[in-house]
């Protein structure tokens, strides 16, 4: 495994704010973690992700949490909004906004991609938006 348990739990919390659960599932519930492991390895971005996830946790500790995944959801969202704008308080060893944009882009790729990518089981993301394959 490329990431350890703590990193995976941060990654899971992150992508579930990028695509949260409503009456359709969140990103982590449709296989996006496994998808990310594949594309992160393919693009050799493991270090960027590891440093970004560590940055999120340092940011969360400054915001009064133990780690990012332990913050209340509303606090996770406001923290991510700051990171998206590059307005960080903690030390980051990778560019925070670039990391966040990349993670958001790749989580969304996983969520809406074809089921052949090991995501979107039964085409549930396509059902949500109304895309249908007839032939």
């Amino acid at each position: 495994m490329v990431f350890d348990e703590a990193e995976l739990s941060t990654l899971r919390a992150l992508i579930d704010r990028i695509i949260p659960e409503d009456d359709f599932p969140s990103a982590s519930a449709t296989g996006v973690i496994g998808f990310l492991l594949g594309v992160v390895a393919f693009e050799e971005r493991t270090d960027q992700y590891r440093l970004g996830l560590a940055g999120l946790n340092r940011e969360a500790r400054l915001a009064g949490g133990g780690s990012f995944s332990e913050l209340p959801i509303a606090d996770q969202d406001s923290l991510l909004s700051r990171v998206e704008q590059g307005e960080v308080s903690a030390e980051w060893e990778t560019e925070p906004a670039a990391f966040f944009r990349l993670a958001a882009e790749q989580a969304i790729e996983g969520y809406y991609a074809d089921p052949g990518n090991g995501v979107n089981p039964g085409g549930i993301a396509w059902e949500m938006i109304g895309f249908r394959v007839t032939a």
Partner: protein
Amino acid sequence: MSRYDAIVIGSGAGGGVAAYVLAQAGKKVLLLEQGKWLTFEDEPRDHLRNHRLSRYGHNTGPDLDGHPRVFVENGQERTVQPHQGGYNAIAAAVGSGTLVYGGQAWRFHPLDFKMASTYGVPAGSSLVDWPIEYEDLAPFYHRAEWEIGVAGGDPAPQMPARPTYPMHAVPLTEKGRLLHAGAEKMGWKTQPVPLLINTAFRDGRRACVACQHCVGFQCPSNAKNGTQNTVIPKALATGNLTLLTEATALKIESQDGVATGVTYFHEGAEKTATCEVVVVAASAVESARLLMLSDLGGGSGHLGRNLQGHYYAGAWGVMSDPVWDGVGPGVSISTLEFSHGNEGVIGGGMLADDFVMLPLSYAKGYRPPEVPQWGLAHKHWMRDTYRRFIQVTGPVHEIPNPEARVTLDPNVTDMFGRPVARLSGVAHAETVRTTRFLTQRAAEWLRAAGSEQVWHRDHGQFLSGGQHQAGTCRMGDDPKSSVVDRDGRLHGTPNVFVADGSVHPTNGGFNPVLTIMAMSFRTTEGIVNMW
């Protein structure tokens, strides 16, 4: 050493037609294709790895390893692989781009051949007229329309009369109906989009099954007419064609200014075949590169220059009710009102609706500025607007810039140790102005069709090539300012011809594939007639 009458390099729109015309004329032909012969069963329909969205790979060749290019942007250069931005990939496969294209089958407008004399030459551009006119190409357009197979309706009122197409147009989609009503309001004439797609059983193959994937993917019913399922099988049936796949042309051999054969790599070894005639149709980037590697065609200094493709004008809208019917290919209505005669800009282009939008493309590329990239707001935007989304888009006739070019990179080599293509420069500023003009017309069309919210992206200056790449071996009568003559023959080399988009002096305000096919019919019929 094998001996052929002619060797054709590349099996796409130009090369496939060339091999067919030559083989039918009784010539012994070798067709070299770098890619494989792919079938729909090989096709995983991967939304992240296809010729519409190649985020992590492609559904055709070239392989990601061993075929880099160097891309220069804002003074920074980087080595890029075939699926990455800046590479400007053309599908490597039998049929090349015609295996996975959308197949819009436009004739260029008569004025597309006369851009310089119609508009003048803007500073910094190399804008020229073609050495031939629409009327010279018309019979070959007709041949391409019937022998490859086009479905469509009557010509636009802005176009000359022509014989009918062999097949009726694809049906108007729900979005098309709304756009038709919008155009009526504006007083704009519209017509169906001609497509190289069977809308009836023809040539032993089925009609389009109206699937949602189409452009960027192989066709599930083999109804999309590419060279791989039309002219190449017919050429093979003559017994005169030898098709080698996974065969890369390395160099055109020549002696005293005359080509003697082609050295290529196939099945693990370099081989040389001799021939009387070489037809280069490897795409605008690779044809120029191969000629440079062969030390041919460089006399004018124009070889590799004037690289162009198509900027896309376009606007996006959201209707109040769902308009998605999912009927593929999805492109069904067009207007040629803005192909020419536009106040204050040079040239113009065709505008049309588009292929069925894939969810991932929508999620990644079409957000209005106020929608965030993430969170429930993004998810709700996807859910609430995907079926209400509508767009108008179209290729802009680019104004060539001699500084947009292909050269040989001094440092990076491919798997065979040859210098790779280095792409540098940007489109001419006039191309951007025309794009902005057409984008405003697209937005007007959407509003007239009932879209209250309309948005679009802005365009800066960037290198344009992509799937419509052209211009690097421009055709002209003067050997000092062009690479091939009006017959497609390399100035200074009597037996090397170029038969792909490279020869286009300008690339039209339309998808260029029917023009590439027609030009190849014309060039290779010319070869046969002179032989």
